[in-house]
């Protein structure tokens, strides 16, 4: 799977432990930027970036408005705002309506990143209890990018992976261990 320049990931229920498992499988100097939307209750002020950076011992941050997407980073969408990737591959935030009761929404990240990266994007949809992300993943595929859905039999909550599978045929349906191995093989193209 060559030519991938960014990976977007989406998850809700069960997502913290799934993402930790996945990221632990990656080398510390992993170069491909990883951009995540993880649904959390609105009233819980998100400390995802701190939690993940402590556990993973690598740079993790909450994506800021206009921040360029940089190699070697893991980004999380902050609470209360949708996160998009712009054509110039920087982040933008917005407070548009919720999508599938969610803000941030996985669909919004995936669709905007698909527009920005086209075939150079890999989308990964993991465990979750609603249908957010299915449409976005199909769009990544539709614009030539690659897609992976977590095997619903393994997912803590299968609703989200199943919704994705109902909408399109991903390149891979894998358990977390397989997704980790596959992500680990990705290398940024030489500049």
């Amino acid at each position, binding site marked *: 799977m060559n030519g991938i320049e960014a990976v977007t990931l989406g998850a809700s229920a069960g997502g913290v432990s799934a993402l930790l498992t996945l990221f632990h499988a990656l080398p510390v100097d992993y170069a491909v930027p990883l951009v995540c939307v993880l649904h959390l209750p609105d009233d819980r002020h998100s400390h995802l970036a701190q939690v993940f950076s402590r556990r993973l011992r690598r740079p993790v941050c909450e994506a800021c408005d206009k921040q*360029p997407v940089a190699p070697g980073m893991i980004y999380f969408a*902050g609470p209360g705002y949708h996160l*998009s990737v712009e054509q110039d591959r920087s982040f933008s*935030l917005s407070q548009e309506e919720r999508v599938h009761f969610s803000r941030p929404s996985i669909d919004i990240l995936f669709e905007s990143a698909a527009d920005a990266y086209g075939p150079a994007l890999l989308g990964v949809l993991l465990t979750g209890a609603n249908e957010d992300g299915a449409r976005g993943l199909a769009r990544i595929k539709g614009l030539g990018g690659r897609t992976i859905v977590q095997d619903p039999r393994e997912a803590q909550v299968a609703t989200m992976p199943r919704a994705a599978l109902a909408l399109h045929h991903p390149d891979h349906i894998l358990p977390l261990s397989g997704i980790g191995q596959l992500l680990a093989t990705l290398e940024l193209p030489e500049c």
Partner: protein
Amino acid sequence: MTIERNTDIEIRLLIEAIYLTYSYDFRDYSGASIKRRVQHAVRQFGCSSISALQERVLHDPGMFMQLLQLLTIPVSEMFRDPEHFLAIRREVVPLLRTWPSLKIWIAGCSTGEEVYSMAILLREEGLLERTIIYATDINPSSLDKARQGIYSKQNMLEYAENYRKAGGLRDFGEYYTAAYGNAIIDGSLRDNVTFADHSLATDSVFSETQLVSCRNVLIYFNKALQDRAFGLFHESLCHRGFLALGSKETLDFSAYAGRFDTLARPERIYRKS
């Protein structure tokens, strides 16, 4: 990919048509958000394509006003991000006191929640009487709502909680009258407020100010337009004036990063260098 390219072309044409016809300039808004707003509008108005929407908008000013409501995002709360207002109260107000009279610009005031929050804070600190607040927005129907100061009573519990966390000194219920499910904000709070149509994309500075508050507006702009807005704020602010932004907005990636000092980073309060 042709359909994708056509979509992008149609959006550009629509935005250009709006600019040429109505002088509303969305050309430097964030692309991802504008694309979603336009596609949302196409569905809302039952148009067959973006070009079809453009045709209607070009020939029908009423249609454009409806579209404007969808292109702008009027999401607001009173005392949104209470810690921001607490920082204004504790760290900015003591310095504002040193000026004999104050001018404050609330840019992109939307439906007015930020304006009344600021007015309440200033009244409690004894500063409202010597302050002129300029509250500006591009959306006339948002400005109308702001002028009226009537909000759903449902939201008042949440606003009262925000107010308390923001260091409010009184009972929040003193600032509005409840009627028919609405909360009518105390009209005397806007005695010193001037509401006005102003675009950060096309208009220039209209007054010297000591504080500019522009919250959750700049996230909808691209870098070039953000820099234009920061330029206006910089020009408007007096020596050592204050700039207050939304909780996810930052000067870090802008051309003006070096021309402001950070007063309270998490609360997004800056000071002209």
